[in-house]
């Protein structure tokens, strides 16, 4: 079984830092918020100050509080959707890859259909028919998002499973007489851990985008706070055109930061899965200290400067 050991590159560490920060914010954000995000107790459209770090909305709500409280809903939906979608893609992808034959044809077709339908318009159609009570429920929204986001992972996992299907350890499990589901989920799945992790990161990334977008066009309850509804209210009140940057820029930056963190982590997983992506052998610092060119050149193997030799060994004259 492979364990997932991420390379300790600056990229991966930065990604871990960012994602860790926002996960902590998800837990503690609402407690840290100085005000009730919906309370309209203050003057409208105050600029950033020591009282209101990010100013207030046109209704006099504290924007910083909205940002902190909104982190939870945004991240919870993204995580729920990401986990459910990854679970779906795992079950469908591994089954298709391992069972083969008609089950494979059917399941592959299903995922190809879901890949070909543009996700967001489908989401909008489904969501627009939802009763308002369901729209404000993070779990319902998360589930619907996961429905449109599992297909890519399933396709990748299917391909990976097919490459594992005939390995010795799978054969051995078959001979022992383990059941098919046991082979798929206790023998094969652990070996797909890096792919599963990468697929989880991607679906979480997709889910944040999808959720924020739904909220931005007003398809989630506008009464629950998340980063998308903040943008929705900012847009509805023409904040971008009135230069009220402190209203709409912070949620956007937060979304982008979470996304960047996830993508940076994924670089590490990519390098784990595909060794060619790892920087080969010599670091830039080592190269410099050896007097080698800064970057490796294909077809120009570097030559170390000759050092004085004391004795010649292993010499043939002919």
């Amino acid at each position, binding site marked *: 079984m492979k364990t997932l050991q991420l390379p300790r590159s600056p990229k991966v560490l930065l990604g871990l830092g960012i994602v860790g920060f926002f996960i902590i914010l998800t837990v503690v954000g609402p407690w840290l918020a100085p005000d009730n995000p919906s309370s309209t107790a203050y003057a409208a459209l105050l600029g950033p100050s020591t009282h209101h770090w990010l100013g207030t909305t046109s209704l006099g709500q504290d924007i910083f509080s909205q940002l902190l409280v909104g982190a939870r809903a945004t991240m919870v939906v993204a995580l729920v959707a990401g986990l459910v979608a990854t679970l779906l893609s795992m079950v469908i992808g591994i089954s298709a890859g391992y069972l083969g034959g008609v089950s494979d044809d059917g399941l592959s077709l299903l995922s190809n259909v879901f890949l070909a339908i543009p996700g967001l318009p489908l989401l909008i159609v489904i969501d627009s028919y939802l009763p308002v009570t369901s729209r404000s429920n993070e779990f319902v929204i998360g589930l619907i998002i996961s429905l449109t986001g599992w297909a890519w992972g399933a396709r990748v996992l299917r391909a990976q499973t097919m490459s594992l299907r005939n390995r010795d350890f799978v054969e051995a499990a078959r001979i022992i007489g383990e059941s098919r589901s046991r082979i798929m989920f206790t023998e094969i799945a652990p070996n797909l851990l890096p792919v599963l992790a990468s697929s989880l990161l991607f679906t979480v990334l997709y889910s944040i985008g999808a959720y924020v977008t739904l909220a931005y066009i007003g398809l989630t309850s506008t009464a629950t706070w998340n980063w998308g509804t903040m943008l929705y209210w900012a847009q509805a009140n023409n904040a971008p055109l009135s230069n009220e940057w402190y209203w709409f820029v912070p949620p956007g930056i937060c979304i982008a930061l979470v996304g960047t963190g996830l993508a940076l982590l994924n670089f590490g997983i990519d390098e784990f899965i595909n060794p060619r992506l790892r920087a*080969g*052998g*010599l670091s830039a610092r*080592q190269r410099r200290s*050896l007097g*080698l060119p800064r970057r*490796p*050149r*294909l*077809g*120009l*193997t*570097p*030559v*170390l400067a*000759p*050092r004085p*030799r004391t004795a*010649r*060994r*292993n*010499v*043939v*004259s*002919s």
Partner: protein
Amino acid sequence: MSASRIDVGNRLDRRGASPSREATPSARDFVLEVSDFSVHYGVDANMVRAVHDVTLNVRRATVLGVAGESGSGKSTLVYALTRLLRPPGVISGGRAILNVSSDDDPARVTPVNLTTASERELRRVRWSHVSIVLQSALSALNPVRRIGREFDEVLRTHRRAMSRRERRRRAEELLALVGLEPDRLNRFPHELSGGQRQRVMIALALALDPELVVMDEPTTALDVVTQREIITELAELRARFGFAMIFITHDLSLLVELADEIVVMYAGTIVERASAGELYAAPRHPYTLGLLESFPPLHGERRELTGIAGSPPDLAVESVGCSFAPRCPFTMDRCRAETPPLAPIGETGRSVACWLHATPSPVPVPAALSRRWTAPVGPTAPGVTSR
């Protein structure tokens, strides 16, 4: 022999060549001279010494066989010699000189130091003087191009004067040399069989009439019959065009068929060097003996296959003594303490790195390592006589 050389596009653009010094007399005899050549993977603590202080020469128009298990450093050595080794490979010492003969006057030879050459100089000698055939032709040919374009590209790069039609004719001619129909030029690599692809690679390697062709296990991926055919063809082509060859393989019995001289590599060093006939009939190093016993000969008397117990050493760990000692059936105390140098033995010019053959001999040399051998009398090279 040069009369039979194909003579199309022989003019080579020599502007900017580096005739740094007039070649020494020996340079005319050897196409490649390698001395004290070492290669590392990585540096510092994680360094792996893949090739260590290798010295060898390749005589013009002969075949040098390089044999050894995987991990013995044989492929690393030739990739590094041609400066094609990928990172983290680093050449850590030694010299490799390619003696390039001019096309107008084969007697005039210009040495090119491959270890100091610039990218431009390397580009000039690559393919027109040294070409390469890799183990897997399928991965060595660009999957999205027709075979014809591979030939066209090489000729267009190195023979600027040739017209499109001349290039096409030359490509057809080359395919005919390896027994392929001209219509193969319009095929994609995946449309050919494994044997056909490898023949294409050989034809491509000969496109510019090079002096040295490096073959990295070119027949390993093929079935035995095709393997046999290709070896025969190579011997014929070599006899006809007079190029030198470095032939890398783990199959020593195959080398005996083709090579004039063989070096056996183990753990990054040469452990034995001899003419093909000598090495086959009378091995001197225990490792060579082991290699010979792990493959059936293509023909000739049957032998019991025993193989070599154990596995090659971890090159990341610096060891004392002979690197083969842990697997050697004849290990002595000295083997664990001192590294044997590659030293000449006897009068035939062969060398071996083994304390068993030190003079004065410490112990009686085992019978398997002291067989007598006399060169067959005749005009042909030893490698060719054995067939």
